[in-house]
């Protein structure tokens, strides 16, 4: 070791020195180089200097010459000479210096010549000065040539200087570089050398130190061993790394009865070893030495008393820090006695072994050295070894890691302490089978005192399965976690104590927490009520029971978000077995929307309920199972139940037949389909009241979507009355048929399609058909025109409307008999309600006779009209034609009277007077008659005229008479009337004229007025305060030629009022008089008001 160390160190040092030398050499060389460079630099400097010197010298030559020229002072000549000399010297120097530089050398001849020239010149100048004085020399000085030379010289020098400068720069740089390099090399070399030296020194130091330590340790160890060895009962010894023992403990000497010197004698071993064993022992020992392995052997040794005893010998190698064996500590233990006691122990050991064997787990007993001392058959099986393959082996061969370290005393604690720490705890380790396969094991350690010290009994349990299970569980858990995260609902896993163990992202979102904010917290913090109570074992039942009760049911609770807001949730629980016990997984669904929908639906349902109650018909809502879900008050009344008596009951209890069958899904079709078939149609069924009575109903179905599925709403109408009516109608129809037959007229009943539905015997006779020939036939077969058109709904009006227009009116039409002959008929229509709709009953009357009569009548009337007309015409003509002769008579009698009055005798006068009078009267009569006849014949069209205006005109016509009589005629508001103006004027004129004529005493007062009196006609009144009329004459006075007074009392034809009557009657009115004799009369007549409203 030492030598090795030394060698290394020496080597290193040698290397270091070598490196230094190299460095030194290198730097020396480099320095030399750099030196050279520097020299070159200096050389260049020198050249430059000389060049400058040269220049200066020449300039000095020039200036000194000038000086002399100027002053003539000899002083300057001295300088001139000196300068000259200098110049030559400098030039020489330059030449020699630039020997290496061909460029510069080339220039030198020029320089020389220039110098020579210059000097020549200056000589000349000086000579001149000397000889000829200032002026002459001045001229020479002024000579440019000198200047030119100078200039050229300067330039050349300048060029040379530049060259030198360039070189200078180069060389300086070079020199610098070299110097730098040298420095670097030097430094580097030095550094390397130093480093290596340092390294070497350090490692040497370290080695030394380590060696020291090792030596110390070794010494210490040795000392300790020595101490120990001297205190134990065994034989102990120390050997060096070669195996040569250099120390024995006292016991050794005691046992063998020898001294160290004795042992040192060769062949001593032979003396103590049993010859049979010696070779083997030595051999084994050597092998151990070589391998550096613990040596152990059992062999006899002869003691001082000559007895061979079995010694268990052991030597352990002591390694240094590097692991090199430096010492061997050995012991020899007399086991002869032990062997004996061992036999004893074997007995108990057998027992122990028995226990061991019987143990269910594998048992391995390990000693402090970590060697397997004992193992049972289970252990054999577990590890796949045979007992003896393992006995004595290090436990590490079956439990590579974890066991030994934990247990074996490692210098820092005793085996006992180590063990104490492990006892009782199941330690999971990895076991290694013989075939190399590993399997997980759990070991439980317990100490075992034995003669060999504390042994460790390890109960080894193969936990492959458990590990698998755990792994599987972990996998499952991992998968479970995956599922958890993927779940659409929020998932929260809660343990028995109500702590949240796990939650997924969805739950985070729902409750707006971060995962880590919730894990470990009580589930109460997100679900304040309802969860914990339901689940957590509370002493009266286990978690399992509690859970079992809740599993599967969706429980509605309130969730509490992080921000404190609440929201409705539905949780579904399921148990989860885990290594931590039963956990509860809660799938949490945010049912806010659903709740809203439910509330909305509830609202809708509320409204629906409202509608239900308000409906006029009974409303019953039935679910798909046929149970009544809802009903309104009308339904209650209809069926005589209270609501609660019916809700939940089957609908068949109120509608025994027909409802359920029609609606309820019966396996062949769904409720929806079933319903679809029934919707809208009113179905007649029988309803059953509470009291058992039945009544006819008509139901109308409509579907209703609800949270409970499709419900059916049935509107139930009690059609008892209708049914009665129908029955009644049926009866009526029967009776009607009877009436029909009994009717005197032909009766035909026609339906809306125009077909004959019914007819009676008279109709048969009338039309010459048999009943069955007509029933179903169109009515146009017997009444071709006029019937159908009038009656049948034609798209623009219903049959009812059509009929309404015709009812009551007798319509004249032509009937067509079977023999194609026609005859006039009059039909009277009346409607007839029937189950088939509105039918029309036509009473048909054969009006042939009437028609004849009518025709006859018409003829007659026409005749009369004709004759009337003729009469009127006649009257007119007569009057008109009578006028002519009458005029003659009247005129000539008047002429006679005029011309011959007094010329003839008085009789003649009287006769003529009577004649004249007669003629005049005749004229007046005929005029009035003419007027009378003209009223009808010459009457104008009736127009809307002002009666006021007519009166004014009449009064104008009477103005003479009014003035003459002084009569006062007043009138009220007179309306517009529908009349012939001329005739109205005539009317007023006659009446007012009469009033004036038949005046009483005093001034006649006449008043004309008009009043409506609620009638469509106006009643006009002409009131006077004249003589009045005796009531018995009220009628007569309106007759023709009627006079109430003698001719000499009042003049007049007696036609006036007849004319008035004719006029009034022509206007469709009537005339009358009221009068009191002596008080006056009021003549009243009526006239139509104007047709249009004003």
């Amino acid at each position, binding site marked *: 070791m030492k030598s090795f160390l030394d060698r290394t160190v020496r080597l290193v040092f040698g290397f270091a020195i070598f490196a230094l030398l190299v460095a030194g050499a290198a730097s020396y060389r480099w320095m030399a180089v750099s030196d050279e460079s520097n020299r070159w630099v200096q050389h260049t400097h020198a050249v430059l200097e000389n060049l400058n010197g040269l220049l200066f010298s020449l300039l000095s030559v020039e200036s000194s010459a000038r000086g002399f020229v100027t002053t003539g002072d000899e002083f300057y000549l001295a300088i001139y000479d000196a300068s000259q000399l200098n110049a030559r010297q400098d030039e020489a120097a330059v030449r020699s210096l630039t020997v290496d530089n061909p460029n510069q050398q080339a220039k030198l001849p020029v320089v020389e010549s220039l110098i020579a020239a210059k000097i020549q010149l200056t000589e000349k100048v000086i000579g001149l000065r000397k000889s000829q004085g200032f002026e002459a020399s001045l001229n020479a000085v002024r000579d440019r040539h000198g200047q030119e030379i100078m200039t050229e010289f300067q330039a050349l020098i300048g060029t040379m200087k530049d060259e030198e400068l360039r070189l200078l720069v180069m060389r300086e740089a070079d020199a610098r570089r070299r110097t730098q390099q040298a420095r670097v090399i030097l430094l580097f070399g030095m550094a390397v050398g130093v480093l290596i030296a340092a390294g070497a020194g350090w490692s040497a130091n370290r080695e030394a130190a380590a060696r020291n330590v090792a030596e110390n340790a070794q010494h210490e160890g040795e000392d300790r061993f020595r101490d120990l060895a001297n205190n134990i009962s065994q034989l102990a010894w120390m050997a060096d790394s070669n195996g040569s023992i250099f120390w024995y403990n006292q016991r050794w000497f005691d046992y063998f009865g020898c001294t160290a010197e004795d042992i040192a004698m060769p062949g001593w071993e032979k003396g103590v070893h049993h010859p049979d064993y010696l070779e083997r022992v030595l051999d084994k020992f050597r092998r151990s030495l070589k391998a550096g392995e613990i040596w152990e052997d059992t062999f006899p040794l002869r003691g001082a008393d000559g007895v061979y005893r079995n010694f268990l010998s052991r030597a352990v190698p002591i390694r240094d820090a590097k692991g090199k064996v430096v010492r061997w500590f050995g012991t020899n233990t007399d086991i002869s006695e032990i062997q004996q006691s061992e036999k004893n122990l074997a007995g108990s050991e057998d027992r122990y072994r028995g226990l061991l064997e019987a143990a269910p787990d594998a048992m391995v007993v390990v000693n402090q050295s970590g060697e397997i001392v004992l193992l049972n058959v289970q252990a054999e099986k577990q590890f796949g070894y045979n007992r003896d393959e393992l006995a004595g082996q290090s436990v590490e061969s079956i439990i590579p890691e974890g066991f030994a370290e934990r247990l074996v005393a490692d210098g820092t604690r005793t085996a006992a302490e180590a063990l104490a720490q492990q006892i009782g705890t199941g330690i999971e380790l990895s076991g290694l089978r013989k075939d190399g396969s590993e399997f997980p094991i759990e070991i439980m350690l317990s100490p075992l005192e034995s003669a060999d010290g504390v042994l460790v009994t390890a109960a080894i349990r193969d936990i492959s399965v458990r590990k698998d299970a755990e792994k599987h569980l972990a996998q499952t858990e991992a998968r479970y976690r995956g599922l958890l995260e993927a779940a659409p609902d929020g998932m929260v896993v809660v343990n028995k104590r109500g702590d949240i163990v796990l939650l997924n992202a969805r739950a985070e979102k729902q409750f707006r927490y971060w995962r880590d904010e919730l894990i470990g917290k009580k589930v109460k913090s997100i679900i304040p009520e309802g969860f914990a109570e339901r689940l957590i074992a509370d002493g009266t039942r286990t978690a399992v029971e509690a859970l079992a009760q809740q599993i599967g049911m969706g429980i509605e609770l309130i969730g509490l978000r992080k921000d404190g807001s609440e929201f409705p949730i539905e949780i579904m629980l399921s148990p989860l077995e885990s290594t931590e016990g039963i956990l509860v997984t809660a799938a949490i669904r945010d049912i806010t929307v659903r709740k809203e929908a439910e509330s909305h639906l509830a609202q809708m349902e509320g409204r629906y309920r409202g509608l239900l109650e308000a409906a006029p018909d009974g409303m019953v809502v039935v679910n798909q199972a046929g149970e009544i879900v809802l009903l309104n008050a009308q339904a209650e009344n209809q069926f005589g139940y209270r609501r609660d008596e019916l809700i939940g009951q089957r609908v068949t209890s109120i509608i025994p037949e027909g409802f359920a069958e029609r609606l309820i899904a019966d396996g062949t079709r769904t409720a929806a389909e079933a319903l679809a078939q029934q919707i809208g149609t009113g179905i007649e069924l029988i309803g059953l009241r509470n009291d058992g009575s039945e009544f006819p109903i008509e139901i109308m179905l409509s579907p209703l979507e609800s949270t409970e599925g499709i419900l059916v709403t049935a509107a139930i109408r009690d059609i008892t009355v209708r049914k009665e009516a129908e029955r009644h109608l049926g009866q009526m129809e029967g009776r009607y048929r009877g009436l029909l037959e009994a009717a005197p007229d032909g009766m035909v009943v026609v339906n809306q399609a125009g077909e004959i539905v019914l007819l009676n015997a008279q109709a048969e006779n009338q039309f010459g058909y048999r009943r069955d020939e007509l029933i179903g036939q169109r009515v146009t077969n017997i009444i071709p025109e006029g019937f159908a058109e009038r009656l049948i709904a034609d798209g623009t009006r219903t049959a009812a409307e059509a009929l309404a227009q015709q009812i009551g009116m007798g319509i004249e039409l032509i009937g067509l008999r079977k023999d194609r002959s026609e005859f006039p008929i009059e039909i009277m229509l009346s409607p007839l309600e029937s189950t088939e709709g509105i039918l029309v009953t036509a009473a048909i009357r054969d009006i042939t006779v009437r028609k004849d009569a009518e025709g006859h009548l018409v003829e007659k009337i026409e005749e009369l009209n004709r004759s009337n007309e003729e009469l009127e015409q006649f009257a007119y003509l007569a009057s008109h034609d009578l*006028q*002519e002769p*009458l*005029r*003659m008579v*009247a*005129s*000539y009698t*008047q*002429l006679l009277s005029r011309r011959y009055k007094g010329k003839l005798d008085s009789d003649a006068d009287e006769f003529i007077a009577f004649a004249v009078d007669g003629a*005049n009267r005749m*004229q007046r009569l005929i*005029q009035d008659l003419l007027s009378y006849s003209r009223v009808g014949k010459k009457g104008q069209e009736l127009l809307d005229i002002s009666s006021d205006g007519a009166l004014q005109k009449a009064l104008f016509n009477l103005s003479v008479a009014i003035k003459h009589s002084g009569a006062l005629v007043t009138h009220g508001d007179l309306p517009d009337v529908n009349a012939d103006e001329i005739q109205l004027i005539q009317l007023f004129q006659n009446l007012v004229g009469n009033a004036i004529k038949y005046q009483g005493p005093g001034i006649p007062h006449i008043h004309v007025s008009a009043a409506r009196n609620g009638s469509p006609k106006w009643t006009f009144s002409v009131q006077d305060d004249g003589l009045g009329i005796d009531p018995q004459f009220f009628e007569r006075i309106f007759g023709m030629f009627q006079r109430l007074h003698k001719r000499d009392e009042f003049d007049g034809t007696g036609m006036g009022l007849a004319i008035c009557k004719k006029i009034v009657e022509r206007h469709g009115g009537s005339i009358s008089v009221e009068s009191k004799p002596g008080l006056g009369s009021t003549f009243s007549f009526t006239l139509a008001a104007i047709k249009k409203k004003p």
Partner: protein
Amino acid sequence: MSVAVLLVEDSPGDVRLTREAFREANDDIELHVACDGLEALAFLRHEGPHFNAPRPDFILLDLNLPKMDGREVLAQIKNDDHLKTIPTIILTTSIAEEDIIRSYQLQANCYLSKPVQLEAFEDVVKSINDFWLTKAKLPQRSGDE
């Protein structure tokens, strides 16, 4: 200068009355009489026995005439360039509107109805005289043929 008036009237009684009435009104009137329409036209056209008839200053024409109706005469007079300048006054018992209209349509210069009463009749004649012979200007009788 005396005034010549042609009276076309079939009733002698009326003729005499008219003559008496004119005598009352204007002494200077020469009243010529034609009993029917044909005679009236012959007179106007100086035909037959009337070759020397004077041209009347105006004509009094009754409507209801035998042989040729007064309306026809009127039409002929007024269609005759020669005769139409003679004022033709219808003097008739008819007060029918259609007679009045027809007459004026046929260009009668005036329509008068004969009153029934004598006095009234005399008034009418007087009015004719007053108006037509005193106030109205008549075309001069020219010696035309």
